């Protein structure tokens, strides 16, 4: 599979995750979001940016609780829960948000 972004072809795997993390850009994220039927709001970006920062440091996406806590700090306590994250990313914050952030899919019993 592949994405066409700004005249460039970006390679993705069969589930739509980027094959090369370096291919990621805001435009690429927007394009993945469109494929996922998501409108990227500022709050979506907060989540995506946090995922990328965390990944940069730890080479893995954050646990759901780490994510909800961080988002609670940034967007207000009422938004620091997985219910809110599911509103933003209906297919599940871990997988859908990782995909948009250009990170590998979390594997295992999750």
């Amino acid at each position, binding site marked *: 599979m592949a994405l066409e972004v700004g005249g460039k072809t970006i390679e993705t795997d069969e589930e739509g995750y980027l094959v090369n993390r370096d291919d990621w850009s805001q435009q690429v994220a927007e394009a993945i979001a469109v494929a996922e039927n998501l409108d990227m709001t500022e709050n979506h970006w907060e989540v995506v940016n946090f995922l990328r920062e965390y990944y940069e440091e730890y080479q893995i996406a954050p646990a*759901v609780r*780490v994510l909800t806590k961080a988002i609670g700090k940034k967007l207000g306590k009422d938004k620091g829960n997985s219910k809110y994250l599911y509103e933003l990313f209906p297919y599940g914050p*871990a997988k859908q948000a990782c995909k948009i952030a250009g990170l590998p899919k979390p594997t*295992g019993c999750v």
Partner: protein
Amino acid sequence: MAEEIHVPAFREYPIIPAIVEGSMAHSKPYVAKPDHQQSVGYPGQLVDDWQNAAVKKLGELVSQSRALQVFLDSCVKCGACTDKCHYYLGTQDPLNMPVARQDLLRAVYRRYYTFAGKYFPKLVGAKDFTEEVRDQWYSYFHQCSQCRRCSVFCPYGIDTAEISMAGRDVLDAIGVGQKYSNEIIGKVHKVGNNLGLPEPALADTLEGLEEDIEDDTGVPVKVPLDVEGAEILLITPSADFFAEPHIDGLIGYAKVFHQAGISWTLSSFASEAANFSMFIGSHDNLKKVAMRIRQAALDLGVKRIVVGECGHAWRVAYSFWNTLIGPFDFLDPKYPAPQHICEVTYDLIQRGALKLDKEANDHRRITFHDSCNVARASRMGNIPGGQFIIPREIIKACANHFFDMAPETIHQNTFCCGGGGGLLTDDLMELRVKGALPRMEALAKVVNEYDVNTLVAICAICKTQFAKVLPYYKFQMDMITSLHQVVGDAIQLGTSH
């Protein structure tokens, strides 16, 4: 996503649904990439001589396992299993009848390894291992969650799980593995857990968790990592660090150990209870993954090994560890090795070592889902049926409202969540939703009759699967709860006992 999958309707009576031939023939998980395959010791892609290689591998498996040979030789087509598989009930595809699934492998075994099949193949339903057969194997051996419900009803005790494991093992040997399982096993070899969660991230996650618990309760409950000389090494599924509702179970274990005053630790080297090698029938990988746990136990100098809420891990631990990674002569002989977290908690409750406030769970009206691998492939405690009794007794000690689902759907008759056996992957979502039908029907009954609002499970796969499929059946996603969350919420921390 919900609208893309046709969710089967609840049946008013448990009738056997009419067959719809080929209705799931399209269901196939993604094939493993070369590097996934190689990380678990298999050829990267379909080998040139795949037909002969598969037949040879099948012959080896049959010659190594008397059980497998008996399962292949002894079916009398009585039909007792036909309506026992949740995937048949949910998909109506006749190849999801256990006997038909077995016959996919049996036909090839007969063709190459029995007198009648070699000389009169048509008379005995023997088939060449063709590309078409290979595709059918790939499709339908990945529509078996190896839950073993059918084997309970088979008069010969034929275990379809063993047959689907053998089928997957043969496919792996010719280079056609399943991406989900093989990528994960490779990560365990490399990093130590299914997630690929490295030590710094695990440490950071656990630290954050300690802060959360202290914020919530005012009590500094620890979630220790790599503590040498701890009494207990806890081996738990990595989903317990990562996902919901799993993590609330981990908090529950921590509260139990804290309140009982038992020193314990997690290991960053062996940070995974799951062992998906069982799902692909690979003995070598099974041993290699399990060996990390022995190594961690020795390195940390612990006296006991306790296994967290993970269904198939408990089967591997209870049934296979002793011969795989034993003997456990370095552990304290006063305790079972290994021990299930439910056994630990149950013993502490019996001894009055935990002060529990049942009213803390009064908002919950609870039912319990028996996980297949715990129910049908292991035991707990020193009484027959302990694996059914102990989790329920724990719930009843921690909560006032408990209601069992119908008897034909619990204990050894339990229905799979629909996501076990290496099928808990997005590319099999249709199968997962449909396969959950019988469990969802049983749940709907207790929801309607007793206003049940909480579905408790002791398996990471079950928890993730339910969180995903409950909404398809119009239940709340957060109904699914870890058993040790119920325990953790009832524990009165900081009280003397």
